[in-house]
């Protein structure tokens, strides 16, 4: 009996193969290559892989990357060393911005803009490909801080990089300008309206972003706004699909206590979570219903 396998059954088989085999088998024939590289096939392969989580750990001291593969957090197995995908000696793109659907966005490790360099790199570790982002649209002489964010829209089809620039306008006042890079159109575009972020907040942007359901989140820590008054900490949210910034309120914790608290943001079971630690205690909060302030619940102390 001949082993002719119809295309729909062939896809059932191919979708269960690891990426390395699939890329190799693109050399089988032109029709295999067109199946394997089709958007529909990639999407279904990606959704099959949803339960396989990889954790990428960047060790700053040795500037090395380790990939852990495991179905359950902490039940890690088969750690494998990865290399940053570019020139070893001159590795400036060594900050992991975030990863979405297997794509990792890396940026330059420095706050200060170096115009000669691309602002970042999009890296696909599974297929071992990376592409440097082209030169941004906004590159004013007076900009001196630039931070990237990375995410995909809720439909999981459109990846975008968001770039915050702290720069001086004609009147000599510093403001934030925002531009968006679309991986679909492969171009930068200025975001009109943008968002009002203080210099203080850039540090928060730089530290950790959290991606959840088509929205990128940063925890902006409380900052002084005048005589003895502070702006409360909040979560800045950027919807990748409609390109709108929103603020997500943090839980209403006891006044006074938060003055010296260290906050960090994370995702737990498809919800946003915040850890608030003071010298004495540590509280874990979770926002059970997205964007509903009242749904913040304290899980642990």
């Amino acid at each position, binding site marked *: *009996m*001949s*082993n*002719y*396998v119809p295309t729909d*059954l*062939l896809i*059932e*088989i*191919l979708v*269960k*193969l*690891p990426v*390395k*085999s699939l*890329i*190799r*088998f*693109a*050399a*089988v*024939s*032109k*029709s*295999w*290559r067109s199946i394997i590289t089709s958007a529909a096939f990639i999407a279904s392969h990606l959704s099959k892989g949803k339960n396989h989580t990889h954790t990428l750990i960047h060790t700053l001291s040795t500037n090395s990357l380790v990939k852990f593969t495991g179905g359950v957090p902490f039940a890690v197995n088969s750690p494998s060393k990865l290399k940053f995908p570019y020139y070893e000696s001159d590795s400036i793109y060594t900050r992991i911005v975030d990863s979405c659907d297997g794509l990792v966005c890396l940026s330059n490790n420095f706050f200060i803009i170096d115009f000669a360099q691309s602002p970042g790199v999009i890296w696909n570790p599974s*297929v*071992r490909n990376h592409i440097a982002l082209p030169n941004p649209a906004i590159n004013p002489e007076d900009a001196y801080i630039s931070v990237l964010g990375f995410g995909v829209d809720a439909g999981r089809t459109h990846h975008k990089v968001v770039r915050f620039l702290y720069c001086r306008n004609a009147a000599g006042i510093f403001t934030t300008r925002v531009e968006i890079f679309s991986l679909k159109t492969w171009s930068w575009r200025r975001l009109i309206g943008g968002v009002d972020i203080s210099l203080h907040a850039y540090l928060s942007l730089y530290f950790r972003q959290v991606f959840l359901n088509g929205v990128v989140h940063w925890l902006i820590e409380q900052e002084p706004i005048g005589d003895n008054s502070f702006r409360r900490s909040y979560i800045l949210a950027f919807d990748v699909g409609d390109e709108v910034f929103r603020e997500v309120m943090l839980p209403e914790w006891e006044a006074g206590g938060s003055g010296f608290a260290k906050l960090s943001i994370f995702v737990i079971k498809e919800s946003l979570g915040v850890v608030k630690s003071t010298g004495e205690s540590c509280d874990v909060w979770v926002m059970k219903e997205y964007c509903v302030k009242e749904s913040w619940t304290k899980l642990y102390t």
Partner: protein
Amino acid sequence: MAAETGTPTTLTLKSNDDELFSVAESAAILSVTIRNMVEDGCAGGVIPLDNVDGKTLASVITYMNGISAIPADEEKKKSYRDKFLSDKDFETLADMVLAANYLNMSCLMDAVSAKIAQVMEKKSVGWVRRKFGIENDYTPEEEAAVKEEHKWTFEGVETDDDN
């Protein structure tokens, strides 16, 4: 359906090379195709399965009997499936994937396609072409270029075992 008490109903299946098989209805209806025939009342005599040969059908019936004897325990069913498929060669698996599709047996379909993927994983491009009967429509230059572009995916490929 099977009577409340007494002997279970038995169906007779006929392969495309005219072999006849008896199988308990309760096991046979794992195939949605057969179940529909039974429900439509057209399973009285012999059920002809025009797309499955005797060798493959025998194998599928072994699977039907084996898996339906296991109570609702996904772990045990999974280990039965693994064991059942462990000694099957590529040709048998390819026949089974076609049969599972024709008979509309999703659990067998998933297991067999996963097994084929597992068998293929470390195989060479040439092996895959021979086993799937695929004609190479690349020019030598095109093929060399495709391979050169992703050199690393050709590391760790097993030596062909079908020559």
